[in-house]
């Protein structure tokens, strides 16, 4: 007896109307079609098991590395080496780099590995094919540096410098520049050590001139090596710093200034706040005109408004004669305290308190109002909550005092923070608190009803 209840199971058949377009005009979508198309593209050839097992091996290695299972990674790596003999030429050529990257990671972290093992591995991998020599040499040298073996690192870098095989390409050029620059950095380090010894020597010491000569030769080598790299756009902080230090030591201020200005202002270089900081510090030492200093710091202000140099910026702006600078000085201070990292910076608060008082006393209360408008919604709970009052007072009474002054000026004497501090009993600050109370009463923007 057949039951006529129906149960429909739609079969997936190789339909007669297999459309070229997966998405037809009526908006219908055939997800299973993609598989068929893909299999036709490779001629219906099945992927070889060799390829399948090696790619499974690769993902297992990557997983083990992610989980820091060095032992397991080494086990699978052992089987992965056979990709160097892959019959597929594309895979065979790509294999050395993959093996180098994974293998060097494993050797770096595995407890049983050591410098000799790493060096042996690097030497082997370097010589497989010509494309990887420079990259591996550089990474090998960095590894040695990491383990404090400077002489060996320098030696490897020198060897790599003279590598002439492989096609000339832009990446190769950059690699060579890198290698030279790191070598230069190592030479700078030796120079720096010699400088220290030198400074301890007396002018009449017999070793003085030879030491000086020695240092000079190092300098020349270093400058040649580093100058090539820093012409290329990039972030080269340690190289630039050491190079400039050497130039300054030998009195080549112009050269140093040129390098730093280039580093900071060349548009091709990525935006780098450190560049501006170095330039600023250099100009400060040189006692450059204020206008110049201000222009450098202005750029820094735009990139990193929370930097501690902003306080110096503020002082410079205050001293200036232009009114727009005075306004900017106020903006800068507010800007610094917008950031969570600076909330406990007592200098910033002190400056702000002083300057607010000054501005409100003077003829620019409108400036304060302008700055406060965008902040009055969130600064009270960010800086001046009751919780902060208690914890700041416990931690640092001077900080709490300055903050409360600002709070009073901006929020009036009714503000919780202000009132809390007033209630506190403190011998040293008693007088100051009294004076603050007076100022707040007089100058707070709440009072003036703006």
């Amino acid at each position, binding site marked *: 007896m057949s039951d006529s209840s129906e*149960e429909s199971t739609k079969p997936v058949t190789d339909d007669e109307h297999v459309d070229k377009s997966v998405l037809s005009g009526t908006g219908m979508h055939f997800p299973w079609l993609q598989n068929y198309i893909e299999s036709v593209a490779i001629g219906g050839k099945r992927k070889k*098991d060799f390829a399948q*097992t090696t790619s499974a091996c690769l993902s297992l290695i990557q997983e083990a590395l992610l989980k820091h299972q060095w032992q397991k990674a*080494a086990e699978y790596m052992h*089987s992965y080496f056979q990709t160097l003999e892959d019959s597929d030429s594309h895979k065979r050529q790509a294999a050395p780099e993959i093996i180098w990257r994974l293998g060097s990671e494993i050797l770096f972290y595995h407890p*049983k*590995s050591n410098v000799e*093992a790493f060096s042996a591995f690097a030497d082997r991998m370097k010589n497989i094919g010509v494309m990887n020599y420079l990259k591996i040499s550089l990474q090998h040298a960095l590894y040695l540096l990491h383990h404090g073996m400077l002489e060996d690192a320098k030696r490897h870098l020198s060897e790599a410098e003279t590598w002439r095989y492989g096609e000339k390409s832009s990446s190769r050029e950059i690699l060579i520049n890198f290698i030279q620059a790191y070598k230069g950095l190592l030479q700078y380090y030796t120079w720096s050590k010699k400088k220290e010894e030198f400074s301890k020597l007396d002018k009449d010491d017999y070793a003085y001139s030879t030491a000086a000569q020695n240092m000079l030769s190092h300098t020349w080598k270093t400058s040649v090596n580093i100058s090539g790299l820093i012409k290329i756009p990039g972030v080269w902080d340690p190289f630039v710093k050491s190079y400039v230090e050497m130039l300054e030591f030998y009195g080549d201020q112009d050269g140093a200034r040129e390098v730093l200005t280039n580093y900071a202002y060349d548009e091709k270089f990525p935006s780098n706040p450190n560049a501006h900081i170095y330039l600023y510090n250099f100009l400060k030492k040189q006692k450059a005109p204020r206008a110049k200093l201000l222009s450098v710091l202005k750029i820094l202000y735009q990139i990193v408004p929370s930097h501690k140099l902003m306080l110096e910026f503020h002082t410079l702006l205050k001293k200036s004669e232009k009114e727009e600078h005075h306004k900017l000085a106020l903006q800068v201070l507010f800007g610094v305290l917008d950031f969570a990292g600076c909330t406990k910076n007592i200098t910033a608060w002190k400056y702000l308190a002083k300057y607010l008082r000054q501005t409100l006393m003077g003829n620019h209360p409108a400036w304060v109002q302008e700055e406060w408008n965008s902040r009055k919604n969130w600064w009270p709970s960010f800086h001046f909550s009751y919780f902060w009052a208690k914890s700041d007072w416990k931690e640092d009474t001077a900080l709490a005092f300055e903050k409360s002054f600002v709070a009073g000026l901006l929020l009036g004497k009714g503000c919780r923070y202000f009132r809390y501090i007033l209630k506190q009993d403190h011998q040293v600050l008693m007088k100051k608190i009294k004076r603050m109370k007076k100022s707040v009463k007089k100058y707070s923007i709440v009072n003036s009803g703006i």
Partner: protein
Amino acid sequence: MKMTVPRTLAFCYLSLLWQRETITLSDLLRFVEEDHIPYVNAFQHFPEEMKLYGRDKGIFAVESWPDYEDIYKKTIEVATFLDLPRFPDITEDCYLHPNILCLKYLMEVNLPDEMYSLTCQVVKMTGIGEVDFLTFDPIAKMAKTVKYDVQAVALIVVVLKLLFLLDDNLEWSLSSLAEKHNEKNKNDKPWFDFRKWYQVMKKTVDEKKQKWEEARAKYVWKSEKPLYYSSVDKPVAYKKREMVVNLQKQFSTLVDLTPTTEKKKPSSFQFNWIEEDTDRTCFHGHSLQGVLKEKGQSLLTKNSLYWLSTQKFCRSYCKHVTTYEESNFSLSYQFILNLFSFLLRIKASLLHEEVSLIEKKLFKKKYTITKKKSSRSKKVRR
């Protein structure tokens, strides 16, 4: 027809079949994968005098394990090519007879022994136990041989469907009944509980599968003797080999020398179930009482429904079955297929095909009726 390594393996299988050895094709291929039979780097065992180069590389540099369907096709090819006569009969006492193979697989998959009588019944009803059906005859008009192992396993799947329906519903309700009964009657022979069996098997198979995948990922295809195409390539090939060996030596120092598990001897059973083992329940002795009910002299299954794996067969020469699209079937069915296809190392779609073929024979009448009606599968009540 040119000889290749897969064809050689097919030829070996033919000889095993001729001698009616107690080894199935899936066993043979599994032994190859487990390196008990030289295949991937067979040329390593050749004597020194035999130099391999040129086109030998294409033949002997094997980069894939043998595939069941591929070898199966090749056995027929080779047998036809060699003009072999009809093979020795496969009778009821041969290992390859479905009755015996079913028993073996039932044991291996930890199913109750009581299912054996059901499988024998289905064998009788479908006629797949007949000597003429089972024996390989290459000179017959359309040479075909039977996939003995796949067929036996498909039989078990059909019987499971008969008993439990496997529609993601009935099997679980029957399990709850069995569980309740077993709780109350702890001293009797326990009723077979599908849910418990599922849990035990899933865990065991998942573990085994993971180990299998890891072993495959670690498999080393390249041999100590590199194969090269011409004398120009020889030094390069040897240099590469030396490099790989050095790298491997270096990294083997990083790997803890675990007590090297002795390479397991080839065995035709992948799973072993012991009655006394409390960790892994052995279901051999369990009773099917929970799913059968008495009707007069005979027993009927409690389940009276069945669904067909395929509703239409291709009427043309190939007679192929509709493709196995997982999402169309119940999860229990998918689990069962995946379990058995892992056991035999074949694709689930192949097993599904075989199941459909058995059903075709079993419900022959129903299929002729449905051909006339529209293409919808019918639930069949017996």
